[in-house]
C-alpha cells in the first residue's frame, strides 16, 4: 500500500499491520528531517509533489519490490507539506519470511524513491533563506539529499 499524506506518519500502525505469522522479519525505515546538513542548520522542511504522478510511481515501486523479493507486506508512506525537525518525511515498512529480503527491499525502495518519485524538498535554513533541493550530477548547483 502506498500513501501521500499531510499528517504525521503513524509508523507504529504500519509495523503492527505488517506483523504476521508469515513474516519472520519486518524492517521499518524512517527518513526524518535532520537539523544539520554539511554544516548548515535547517529550521524546517517543506515537501511538494506532483501528486497524481507520485502516487503512480510509488505504486510502481511497490509492485516492482514485490516482484523482486518475497514480501508479505509493503508500505510506502510519504508526508507532504511541512515536516518539522525530527519528524518523518517517509516511512517504508517491508515484511518477508526471511530477513535478507526485507533489508534488501527496504534499501532498494528508499534508494529508488529518492531517484524517481516526483517529490521535492524545500530547505528552510536557520539563516532565513530557502532552497529547493535539486540534486544535479556534474554540477556545482548540486544539493545532495542524503538522509
Amino acid at each position: 500500500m502506498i500513501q501521500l499524506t499531510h499528517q504525521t506518519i503513524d509508523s507504529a500502525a504500519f509495523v503492527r499491520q505488517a506483523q504476521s505469522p508469515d513474516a519472520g522479519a519486518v524492517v521499518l525505515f524512517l527518513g526524518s528531517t535532520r537539523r544539520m546538513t554539511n554544516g548548515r542548520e535547517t529550521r524546517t522542511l517543506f515537501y511538494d509533489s506532483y501528486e497524481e504522478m507520485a502516487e503512480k510511481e510509488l505504486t510502481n515501486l511497490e509492485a516492482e519490490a514485490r516482484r523482486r523479493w518475497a514480501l508479505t507486506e509493503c508500505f510506502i508512506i510519504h508526508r507532504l507539506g511541512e515536516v518539522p525537525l525530527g519528524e518523518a518525511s517517509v516511512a517504508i515498512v517491508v515484511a518477508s519470511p526471511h530477513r535478507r529480503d526485507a533489508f534488501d527491499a527496504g534499501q532498494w525502495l528508499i534508494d529508488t524513491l529518492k531517484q524517481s518519485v516526483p517529490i521535492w524538498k524545500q530547505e528552510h535554513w536557520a539563516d532565513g533563506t530557502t532552497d529547493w533541493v535539486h540534486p544535479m550530477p556534474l554540477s556545482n548547483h548540486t544539493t545532495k539529499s542524503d538522509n
Partner: protein
Amino acid sequence: MNIVVKLFAGARDIVGKNEVALEFESPITIGELRTRLIDQHPALQPLLPYAMFAIETTYCDDATPIPKNATVACIPPVSGG
C-alpha cells in the same frame, strides 16, 4: 498547437507560475519543448538540462513526440525521501 507544461519546485519558483502555455505551429518532441522553454525563460537554463519530462504522468525521453492536448510536466531533479 498549444502545449501547457506543469512546473514544480525550483522550476515553478523561477518562472513564478504553476504552468506555462507555449504555442507551436506543428507537433514537437519533448527535446524541442525543453529547448523552447529555455528560450522563453532563460532563468531555467541551470535547471532544465537536468529536468525530466512526463506525458500523462509517465516519464519520457527527448525523442518522444507530444500528442495533442497531452498533459505535460517538467520534473526537475527530485529530492523526496
